[in-house]
């Protein structure tokens, strides 16, 4: 009904601009609209109807419809609805009005489409290269279907360097990254610093592209991709694999058996447990409190062991298939899991009490890295960052998947919007996760693990899935395709949106607070950098010898 209501609202307001609509179930709405009306429609959805912006996706649909496809995805969290607003653009010279003036959160997504698919966005507020490597030639778009997955553009300029913006007057530049001991992953913030105060920054990321999405639509098949999806991230891999599988199941209208759903839920929550414990530890490490860092990791370790016992691996569980899961949780593992949870709860409670009482930690985190409700809306911030600002969203409750509609849990919120609130939210969410796993263990009944799928999956259907990763909503979009593989698969990891909120968080505070502010979103650069270019640096024409490299770094001259 909700989907129908929203569609009627759009039809009343925009009439002929709404071309087609598809309402496969009450949680999804796909609307095809006139390109000329896209800006007004998005402004109406985002502004008047207060939808949350998720992501924009560009698709090269020329081999099938002769057109390019761009969709802007929105969520109505309170009403459990995901909306795709789609436009078809001509094959020659595709152009579309940018929505960034009304929806600032679309900044990166539109730049990515411009880089990867080659759709120009007119009136974009900051149309700079985002994803492609520095030397990549203009006009070559790797996600187009006529670009092979293993192709290397001939005129790649090895020597070309990224052009950074000019820092504002009176500021010096402090490079933060590409490698920094607290990041552990490559990302580059150029901080504009005045004394010890950060006045602004420029971000250059996307440095470890692994071509995952391109591989999925050209080399892998439906059931290979969950394994690949799981390797997007070393922390929330299971989230990506479940989200992908659910997106395909959503597109093909498949419902996995209940036991499979419970197992997925349990593994997702185990993953959240270890991720939150890891994060609290790292946050303490960043502010120089190594004792809590070590204790947190000690408490976390049994969670890794039980994951290994259940799945055969500490991480990368190899869990999902389309229509089910690959393995069961045995009675023995269930008993052990319960014991681990009891111990974890008993140990985590005093640690949280210690953290919550510690004035020293509060001194370093209160009022730091603030993102309030307005900032969350503007930049599309999600997960603990949004919940810490009092934005009550959680995909597990708002867009229920797996077995989350059959368990009871609270969505933890806080209202400070600062790093401290994020610590509190994550620390308390651990208890909810423990409860969820216990309920799943109670309610799980014997039954099949997989659905026998007899036929080929239908072609050209769209599927969406939002999964609440430890860091926020992980959103997957799939168009089913021929040859047993999707035509397009787009992963929007939570860090993709949360990272866009960081410049506002670190502005006008000290450099010392930069790491903990950035750390507080629990950035996952490997998730964000999942994109589809080939690492040219490693296989390109010039190969550096070790000696040359050493000479380069020591003398600063090539």
């Amino acid at each position, binding site marked *: 009904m909700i989907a129908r209501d929203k569609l009627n609202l759009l039809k009343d307001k925009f009439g002929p601009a709404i071309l087609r609509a598809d309402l496969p179930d009450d949680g999804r709405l796909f609307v095809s609209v006139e390109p000329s009306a896209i800006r007004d429609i998005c402004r109406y959805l985002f502004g008047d109807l207060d939808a949350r912006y998720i992501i924009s996706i560009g698709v090269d649909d020329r081999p099938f419809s002769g057109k390019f496809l761009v969709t802007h995805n929105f969520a109505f969290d309170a009403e459990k609805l995901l909306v795709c607003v789609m436009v078809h653009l001509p094959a020659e010279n595709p152009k579309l009005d940018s929505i960034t003036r009304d929806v600032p959160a679309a900044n990166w997504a539109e730049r990515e489409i411009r880089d990867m698919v080659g759709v120009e966005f007119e009136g974009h507020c900051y149309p700079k290269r985002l994803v492609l490597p520095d030397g990549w030639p203009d006009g070559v778009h790797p996600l187009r279907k006529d670009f092979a997955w293993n192709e290397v553009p001939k005129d790649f300029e090895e020597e070309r360097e990224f052009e950074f913006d000019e820092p504002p007057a009176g500021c010096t530049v402090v490079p933060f990254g590409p490698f920094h001991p607290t990041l552990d992953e490559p990302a580059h913030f150029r901080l504009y610093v005045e004394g010890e105060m950060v006045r602004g920054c420029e971000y250059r990321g996307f440095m470890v592209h692994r071509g995952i999405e391109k591989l999925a639509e050209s080399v892998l098949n439906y059931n290979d991709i969950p394994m690949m999806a799981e390797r997007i991230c070393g922390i929330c891999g299971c989230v990506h694999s479940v989200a992908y599988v659910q997106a395909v199941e959503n597109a093909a209208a498949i419902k996995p058996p209940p036991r499979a759903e419970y197992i997925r839920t349990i593994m997702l929550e185990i993953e959240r447990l270890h991720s939150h414990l890891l994060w609290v530890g790292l946050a303490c490490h960043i502010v120089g409190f*190594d004792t809590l860092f070590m204790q947190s990791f000690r408490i976390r370790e049994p969670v890794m062991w039980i994951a290994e016992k259940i799945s055969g691996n500490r991480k990368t569980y190899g869990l999902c298939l389309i229509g089910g899961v690959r393995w069961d949780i045995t009675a023995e593992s269930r008993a052990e899991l319960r014991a681990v949870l009891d111990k974890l709860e008993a140990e985590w409670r005093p640690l949280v009490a210690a953290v919550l009482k510690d004035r020293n930690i509060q001194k370093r985190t209160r009022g730091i890295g603030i993102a309030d409700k307005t900032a969350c809306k503007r930049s599309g911030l999600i997960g603990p960052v949004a919940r810490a600002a009092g934005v009550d969203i959680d995909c597990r409750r708002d867009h229920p998947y797996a077995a989350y509609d059959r368990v009871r849990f609270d969505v933890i919120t806080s209202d400070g919007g600062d790093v401290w609130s994020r610590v509190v939210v994550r620390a308390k969410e651990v208890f909810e996760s423990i409860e969820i796993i216990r309920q799943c263990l109670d309610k799980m009944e014997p039954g099949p693990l997989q659905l026998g799928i007899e036929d080929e999956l239908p072609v050209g259907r769209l599927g969406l899935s939002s999964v609440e990763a430890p860091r926020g909503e992980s959103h997957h979009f799939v168009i089913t395709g021929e040859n047993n593989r999707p035509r397009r698969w787009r992963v929007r990891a939570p860090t993709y949106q949360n990272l866009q909120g960081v410049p506002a968080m670190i502005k006008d505070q000290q450099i010392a607070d930069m*790491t903990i502010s950035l750390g507080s979103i629990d950035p996952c650069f490997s998730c964000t950098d999942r994109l589809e270019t080939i690492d040219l640096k490693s296989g390109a024409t010039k190969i550096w010898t070790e000696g040359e490299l050493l000479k380069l770094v020591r003398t600063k001259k090539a």
Partner: protein
Amino acid sequence: MKPLLPILGGIANVLLLLLVAPFFQGVLRTVTARIQSRKGPPIWQAYFDLLKLLGKEDIESGETPLMQRFAVYLSLATVLTLACLVPMGFPVPMNGVADAILLIYVLTLSGVCTLLAGFAAGSTYSLVGASREMLTMIALEPLFAVAVVIGAVHTGSFRLDTVLNGSVYAAGVPVSGILMLGVMLLSFQAFVQRAPFDISEAETEIMEGPLMEYSGPKLALLKYAQMAKLIIYSALFVALFAPWGSGLPFFLGWLVFWAKVCLLVLLVTLVAATHARFRIDQALRYFAGLLGVALFALVLAGYGY
């Protein structure tokens, strides 16, 4: 007094300092590990670390290698000079040669060396670290000077053996001495550059700051100087504020002294393991408060309390 004796005593102290500094570092690391539910490295690990670093390639990646070399040698040399001016179980070796004013100067110089190392390296993070070190020094150095001067005021002498023998309590009612004891206890972590005041190095923020561009033997010397500093400051603290037992017969007195140093190192470890790092502005506010108390104590000392 024969002129040879101070020199021999000084050399003995320097050797002793070089010998025990890594051991106390090992104690510190082992205890930290225990607090963190870890096993920790062997207690001799600090010796191996130094040997390993000494044997490694020396990469001169900073802006002014010559200055860097100078800064490194100077920082270790300063700490070793301090060893001649501080009682370490025995009376001060260079007693007749130097006085408390020189001690204060050399202590300040050891801080300046870190600055020099940071500025000579010249990378962004080194500079941030050096500027933090400078701010800390400005707020911190007066504290020790005030403590020494209070002792001098009470005893009416700048002689090292007089001042460095619990002289702060020499007044009839040692109000100023007790105030300074509190101030020094609260700021001791900062003097030995441990959490919560490891601000100028802050690995997770500015990647070891001034030390960033140093590797191999140079890093070893800087680390050695740092380890030795912990002992020097502990010894100074014991001499100024906890001199009891120094009059005991030779070996017993020596043992009591090192037991006190060990206790102090354990205290440092405990505090470091249970606190998050301060931000530089928070630390400065904190030091400013302590400085106020210290100056008040100085005034009291002037009136004979």
